[in-house]
């Protein structure tokens, strides 16, 4: 596989972008940072499939496409299914020798938002992981249905206000916890599962390369701050991601073969979760005195989760 150099940013920047501008994602959206990084970390031909979501509606505004590779879109839940079908067809035709260029390396990637990964496409994704096709599924996790006006999804964390779980006099926003999708996918026995963030570009590029190299189904959950629904200034996208990884709201780690857990980033200055929550408009109501217990709960959940990750890293089970 032709992997491009990610020794430092200067080397990395010699790659030729295959994701074009003039898509209609919001200014400052992290989706396109993640997609560009994936497409720059390899020279191989890519077959990409995308679930319905912000990424799909914004990059294929008829009659334009922003993708310089093969790109498929069918249904809300079918990215995993369609890309695995393409992968099976490719391997059969390769065996028969009916491809135009039989030796050209091709990688199969599916993109989904958190709505289509955690809720709507979950069954299809789970099926594809179980069947063990050679593909990489990347979830762009912005914690709500941003494309349709910011409804709650099962990726929305506790305490956040969304258009269908609003904070007000009787409620502090969403009351349920976020689904731990990385653990669920690791439990499928996938050879490579990771949670990555765009602000740590190097660990992200390394993770993508590892996932593309690994044979079998790989799953990557990436944090994608949404300036429209998280309610912060577009210029702060990377700053918010820094706060998320440094407060351990989004720990960066990988799980190999379902048991070998490696923590990829340990913050030098561990931040309190208040710093992360306070930077966003969707958590503004939590700073009222009557909602203080929610912040305490979020902090204690984070501490427990971090303790669990560290113990799992040590134990290797």
């Amino acid at each position, binding site marked *: 596989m032709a992997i491009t150099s990610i020794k430092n940013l200067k080397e990395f920047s010699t790659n030729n972008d295959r994701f074009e501008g003039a898509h209609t994602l919001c200014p400052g959206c992290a989706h396109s940072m993640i997609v560009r990084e994936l497409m720059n970390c390899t020279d191989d031909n890519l077959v990409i499939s995308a679930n319905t979501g912000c990424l799909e509606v914004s990059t294929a505004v008829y009659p334009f496409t922003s993708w*310089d590779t093969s790109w498929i879109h069918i249904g809300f839940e079918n990215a995993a299914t369609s890309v695995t079908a393409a992968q099976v067809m490719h391997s059969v035709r390769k065996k028969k020798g009916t491809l135009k260029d039989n030796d050209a390396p091709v990688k199969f990637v599916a993109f989904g938002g958190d709505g289509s990964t955690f809720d709507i496409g979950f069954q299809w994704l789970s099926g594809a992981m179980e069947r063990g096709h050679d593909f990489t599924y990347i979830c762009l996790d912005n914690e709500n249905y941003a494309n349709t006006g910011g409804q709650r999804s099962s990726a929305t964390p506790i305490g956040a206000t969304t258009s269908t779980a609003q904070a007000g006099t009787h409620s502090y926003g969403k009351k349920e916890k976020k689904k731990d999708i990385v653990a669920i996918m690791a439990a499928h026995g996938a050879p490579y599962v990771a949670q990555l963030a765009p602000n740590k570009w190097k660990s992200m590029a390394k993770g993508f390369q590892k996932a593309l190299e690994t044979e079998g189904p790989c799953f990557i959950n990436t944090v994608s701050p949404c300036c429209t629904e998280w309610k912060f200034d577009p210029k702060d996208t*990377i700053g918010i991601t820094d706060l998320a990884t440094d407060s351990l709201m989004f720990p960066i780690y990988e799980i190999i073969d379902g048991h070998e857990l490696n923590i990829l980033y340990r913050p030098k200055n561990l931040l309190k979760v208040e710093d992360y929550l306070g930077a966003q408009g969707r958590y503004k109501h939590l700073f009222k005195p009557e909602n203080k217990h929610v912040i305490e709960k979020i902090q204690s959940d984070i501490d427990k989760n971090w303790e669990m990750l560290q113990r799992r890293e040590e134990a290797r089970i």
Partner: protein
Amino acid sequence: MQDLKLKANENRGLHQLESGKDLYGWDEVTQGSVLPSFEGDASKIAHLKAEERDYSNYNSYTATVASWRVKKPVFNIDVCIDCQNCWVWCPDSSILSRDKQMLGIDYDHCKGCEVCVEVCPTNPKSLLMFGENEDLETALSQWPEKKKKEK
């Protein structure tokens, strides 16, 4: 300053990005469509720079979103250290970078989100936001001095 026109494909930013120019009824819509991004063979596209590619009119590279912008980033080549932070985090593929050097900004695709200015590590910053109608020379003449470290 280097000539930026050389680093851009002649097809860049020809069209305004607008959809639904010809509206169809629900029963007239086709069930699916295939949009070729390039004219001819596209199998070696990863090894071609933008100026060497043969873009088709369906590629959004040939469209422009310049009208989204209220403020624009201006690049000062004298302060830049070519760290490429702006290149890796630009959401709109609008930083023109060739041979490990930052050359300038693609104003057809930039939406003015200011991410590049935020991640710029130099002192003073080598990218700053100016009004959309400001011309480049006046903007460069207003560049701030190096800030001293606060003790």
